[in-house]
């Protein structure tokens, strides 16, 4: 089996209880943002508001080398 090449994803989290990540995480090429989030323990559309390169991410977006993922607290205000 040929393994996929790895790419670097920069990650920043503003969620205090989900902030224990290294600044850069390596994932296989062709990984979607949703899969990436699930790999780092974030339930999609529940546990974080997810930004990709400063834009709100769509679950099917494919990550590119050196992309920046930002995790924000998921709340509705009050």
């Amino acid at each position: 089996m040929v393994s996929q090449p790895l790419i670097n994803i920069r990650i920043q989290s503003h969620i205090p209880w989900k902030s224990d990540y290294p600044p850069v995480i390596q994932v296989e090429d062709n990984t979607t943002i949703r899969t990436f989030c699930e790999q780092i323990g974030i339930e999609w559309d529940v546990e974080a508001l997810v930004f990709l390169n400063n834009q709100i991410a769509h679950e099917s977006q494919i990550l590119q080398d050196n992309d920046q993922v930002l995790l924000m607290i998921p709340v509705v205000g009050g």
Partner: protein
Amino acid sequence: MKYLRINMSHLHYKEDDVPTDRLLLGGRALTSQLIYEEVPATCHPLGPLNKIVLANGVLTGSLASSAERTSIGAKSPLTGGIKESNAGGIAGLKMGRLGYRAIIFEGLRDDFQIVIIDKDSVRFEPADEILGLRASEAAQKLMARFGDQVSINLIGVSGEMKMNTAAVTNLDKDGSPTRFYGRGGMGAVWGSKGIKAVIIDDTGAERNKPRNRERFMDGMKNYALALREHPGTSKVYPELGTAAMVRTTNHLGALPTRNFSTGSFEHYESISGEKMRETILERGGEGSTTHACMPGCAIRCSNIYPDEEGKTVTTPIEYENIGLLGSNLGIGDLDQVVELNRLCNELCIDTIETGAALGVAMQAGIAEFGDFEAAKNMLLDLEKGNPLGRIIGGGATLVGKIYGERRVPAVKGQAMPAYEPRGIKGLGVTFATTPQGADHTAGQTIRAQVDHRSPEGQVEISYNAQHVAIVVDSLGVCFMASGPIFTKDNIKHIANLVSGYIGQDVSEEDIRAMARKCLQTEHAFNRDAGFTKAQDRLPEYMYLETNEAADTRFDVKDEELDKIGVTAAH
């Protein structure tokens, strides 16, 4: 379950049983239905034909977590349309124990009365002793007179002067008069009927019991589990409160800054939820980073903000207040924001409308952005009823008209809450099309994992969110719980909870149908009041000028808005 009708002109009252086919009508759905049926849509909001309804949610009184909210509804002097505004606190619990689903106030009077409701009767006493006082002092005097186990609904000097910014407040579970029915000038309508305070004394009343205990307990178990499992209700709100939003909205370019001219603020970190938490923990004393406004709330999103000596300044400091009284005024000092918030609480004025009114005044050159002292002085003018204070107390739209300022962040005359709608267009759609005037609690879309700056798909997202809002506001459930309720299929557990409490079979679809009907009814009232699609628009400058932080203008098409607005066939 009963309705209590109180005629303030004649100081009479009577009770009616709630018809069994109306047991699923509570909170917003009930206030809106009663206002639609009983108030002529073209009446003067401060005249004898308007009525004001204090209504419990369907679950209010049941002691289900975060579900003790009450709504106040009337024709609004601010928007000229139908209005509902709801609050936590303890009024709902007491009202529920006395067996009242709603209290309907009718008539008009020039003097002010205290209305005392207990299990045997309704009494009226002159309110002269507490007129003109700040809310905390008035509440202290009332507690000294009626005991500290009663609930107190109260207006402040703003309501006495019938200002558009006037709110009604009620006590939290620790006796602080800081749980506000803030929006739409409901305090002015109370004032017009001569109601200064309503005391609800449930001494001797029996605890409410669910009609079908087994079903109710089953619903409770699953509802509690949903609250515990959801990160918002289990972690975010208890730790940071709603102020957790500051970083997120700033990042989205949606934190209103200097009269909604842009959506990010250079000092946002110093007014963030994280900074607030750090300050409260550092100062200690009476301060608390988490607090429940009502008995049994498991979420505890509130807080108590202390001064440097650890003495309470006020409670709670919410995201909306930080946005409107902080970044919107160019003020980046948390203590200053809290002081403005405290004054608003004491005067019983809506922090959102007031913050926006001050922002428009600053835009018009009455004061510089960032000038805390000037903002504070304008609030003191409001308290005294000076001309400038009366103008600020008239709300953002009035300030704009008087000072010739076209940049007024309001829809249907009501100021926007702390979300710059060019940065979160779904909320822009809600502000434009809800019958309630610009109001985030009428259809919050920020949590959607979508591109908030794109116009595509926002109408559908907002329309769904508008129904979610009606469901929680009608059941009496706190908006903070809406995330878990509408995650997975938890709504079916809520249907179970409701069925068990009222003793009728209520399905998920019944609850959704109730929300659809409520929205239709509110639009019908507004149509009868003369609203057209011209009122379903954001302010013109938001279509013409770019919010630089979000790098976008508001560009959801009018035809799209009209699919769900006042002229749509729902």
